[in-house]
């Protein structure tokens, strides 16, 4: 039986999914923007509590992971399967590094009593409360996306090693790459809004 594959259709489908993701995160960015305008001082003060170093390292980690997944797709197109899955595994590793850094960032904040509805936070102004709640929701949902990306790329590593992703069939890997890049782009906007607004 001849296998039917629609390369263009698969790619359009992925892009459409990404458009819904843009609108999904867009809603949260709008929320941030409206309340930042209403409580500029609170947002300004709260952003000082953010760890700029960890945020910057995480940005570099995600940008580099995007390079690796892009190179892995380029490698599979050139027929070097081994280089491709090595680069995919490196992307997964960097994704895990991102989540570990995020874990330390969150636990450090929670340790200082900054978490949604904490007694300390409720004593602060509305701006601070909104900033930290948005911080946890937006970076949390983003981290969930990173986690999903790690799982999906791991499956791609398996497929590539097994040989079902190869030089003439790489749509799955390419679409996974598109997803990972979008997750990267969302972080590109989260970074200045939470870490660089003091």
């Amino acid at each position: 039986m001849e296998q039917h594959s629609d390369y263009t259709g698969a790619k359009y489908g992925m892009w459409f999914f990404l458009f819904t993701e843009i609108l999904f995160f867009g809603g949260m960015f709008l929320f941030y923007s409206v309340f930042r305008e209403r409580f500029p001082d609170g947002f300004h003060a709260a952003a000082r509590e953010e760890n700029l170093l960890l945020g910057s390292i995480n940005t570099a980690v995600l940008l580099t992971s995007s390079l690796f997944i892009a190179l892995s797709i380029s490698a599979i197109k050139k027929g070097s399967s081994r280089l491709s899955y090595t680069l995919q595994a490196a992307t997964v590793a960097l994704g895990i590094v991102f989540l570990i850094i995020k874990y330390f960032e969150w636990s450090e904040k929670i340790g200082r009593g900054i978490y949604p509805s904490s007694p300390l936070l409720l004593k602060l102004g509305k701006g601070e409360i909104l900033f930290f709640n948005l911080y946890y929701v937006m970076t949390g949902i983003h981290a969930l996306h990173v986690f999903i990306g790690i799982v999906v790329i791991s499956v791609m590593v398996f497929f590539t090693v097994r040989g079902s992703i190869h030089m003439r069939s790489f749509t799955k890997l390419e679409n996974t790459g598109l997803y990972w890049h979008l997750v990267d782009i969302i972080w590109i906007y989260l970074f200045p809004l939470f870490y660089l607004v003091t």
Partner: protein
Amino acid sequence: MEYGERSEQAHDIGYRTYFYVWIALMVLLALTIYIAVSGFTGYRVPINLFIASLKAALVLFFFMHLRQEGNFIKWMLFLTVMALMAIIMLTYTDTWYR
């Protein structure tokens, strides 16, 4: 061209280009951090959002191969961004004149 099977293979990007894009992204990251901490301008937030958009454009056009995509995807992306802008603007017409 965009409807052709595997049409992007004809103009695949070399490893080197990706590497240059990554270097540009790192330079922009350093620049945005510098602007944020040096405090030499009062327009840090809009400038940093502009830099973020440059980074996003680099990822879109090179890593996501938007450059090689057909007009259909480009217009759909444009429409999505415009829809988001419209939602933002409509919300502000409410919050600004309340």
